[in-house]
């Protein structure tokens, strides 16, 4: 119980801080919508949308995720507050989970706004339970892995460059799973057809979360 109370304290602190500053959601949302619009101009109606839309959607969310995660620990560092967390009796697991949940909230908010825009511009039915489930599973994997690498990148000099270089190769299985599952969903396939890809996404969520819990303490060590 104490664990979750402290986790929610960290998540709430991040959400409240972001609500006041609007540094992450506003900028990443503008970027996300711009990318969707650029894709719309680039492809228009010249291609079979169901074939390319999943790729466009997850490339957009991947870049949005990298931008969002990049800010997660940088804001702690800029305020000089990360050491405040480190000297508190909150365990490293608590810090990781709290920061991860905050990043999950930010990214889900961005996706919730971007998906209807995507649906409107490409005239696709993406607001379905299938796409919602895929987005949720993939986003959990994204932030589980990304929060770890964001913490790692924060202690480096070229932190904005380090995160995508380290994070993207590792998160590729999640992107592949999300793209393939989304393609099936947009083609009108049933839940049963998607089970394999959804299972892969869920498995990677578990793997990333487990690895992150095991190594986070060492990652934030100077």
């Amino acid at each position, binding site marked *: 119980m104490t664990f979750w109370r402290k986790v929610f*304290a960290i998540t709430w602190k991040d959400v409240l801080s972001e609500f*006041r500053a609007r540094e992450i959601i506003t900028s990443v949302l503008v970027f996300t919508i711009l990318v969707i619009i650029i894709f719309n101009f680039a492809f228009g109606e010249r291609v079979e949308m169901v074939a390319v839309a999943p790729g466009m959607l997850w490339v957009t969310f991947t870049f949005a995720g990298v931008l969002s995660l990049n800010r997660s620990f940088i804001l702690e560092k800029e305020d000089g507050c990360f*050491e*405040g967390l*480190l*000297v*508190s009796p909150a365990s490293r697991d608590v810090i990781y989970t709290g920061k991860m949940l905050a990043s999950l909230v930010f990214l889900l908010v961005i996706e919730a706004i971007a998906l209807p825009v995507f649906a409107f511009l490409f005239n696709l039915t993406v607001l379905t339970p299938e796409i919602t489930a895929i987005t949720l599973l993939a986003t959990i994997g994204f932030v589980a892995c990304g929060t770890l690498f964001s913490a790692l990148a924060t202690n480096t000099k070229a932190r904005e460059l380090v995160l995508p270089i380290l994070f993207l190769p590792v998160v590729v299985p999640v992107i592949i799973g999300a793209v393939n599952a989304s393609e099936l969903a947009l083609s009108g396939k049933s839940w049963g057809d998607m089970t394999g890809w959804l299972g892969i996404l869920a498995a990677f969520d578990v793997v990333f979360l487990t690895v992150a819990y095991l190594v986070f303490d060492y990652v934030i*060590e100077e």
Partner: protein
Amino acid sequence: MISRDDVGDKAIEVRKLTRTFDDFPALRGIDLEVARGESLVIFGPNGAGKTTLIRVLSTIIRPSSGTVLIDGLNIKEHAEKARRLIGVVSHHPFLYANLSAYENLEFYGRLYDVPDLKTRIGEVTTLVGMTARLHDRVSTFSRGMQQRFAIARALLHRPQIMLLDEPETGLDQQAVALLWEVLRGEAAARRTVVMTTHNLERGLDLASRLLIMSRGKIVFEGGGKSLDLAGLKQAYQDVTAEAGCPQ
């Protein structure tokens, strides 16, 4: 190996502590004991290892080798328990700029499981004389105001040990005076205080014991009342000149 049973009256016990950054030895075999209720003030030129020592004691960074016990708890194995006993004030106030001072204190209070948090926030805010600005955002505060709330944050969970790393950096005279008043109160309350500072006069005033560090080692140790200011200045100059440090 030191065990918790051997602690007795020691708040902090450090044995053969080293810490290196890449190949640079920031701490070279520090041995140190701080008794409960003692006010230990550490002086030394830039690069002497004062900040590294405070960061190791506050469990922000791990020692490369050696043993650190906080109230008998080895920080390698019982870091979380040890952190409950420590209040840290550093150059950074550890306050989130977009939150109010109250929200910051409430946040840290939850991390430390402070009972009756609202009342305690009122007490520490009164102590640092900032009640009127409690609900204002930290981003609107001067450096001095932020540091006052940093002291309130550090005292929030009633720590047995206060670790302060040059807490007066960037403060105006009024804020420095208030800081030292609070610290004298802490020393009088028999709370263990370990502080680094460049301010010889004020440090001497607070110290029940003082150290001078140079190049990662303790090079001078004395009782707080064993030296006057002139004697301390002379000792400081002598040991730092001997070690080839800039004054």
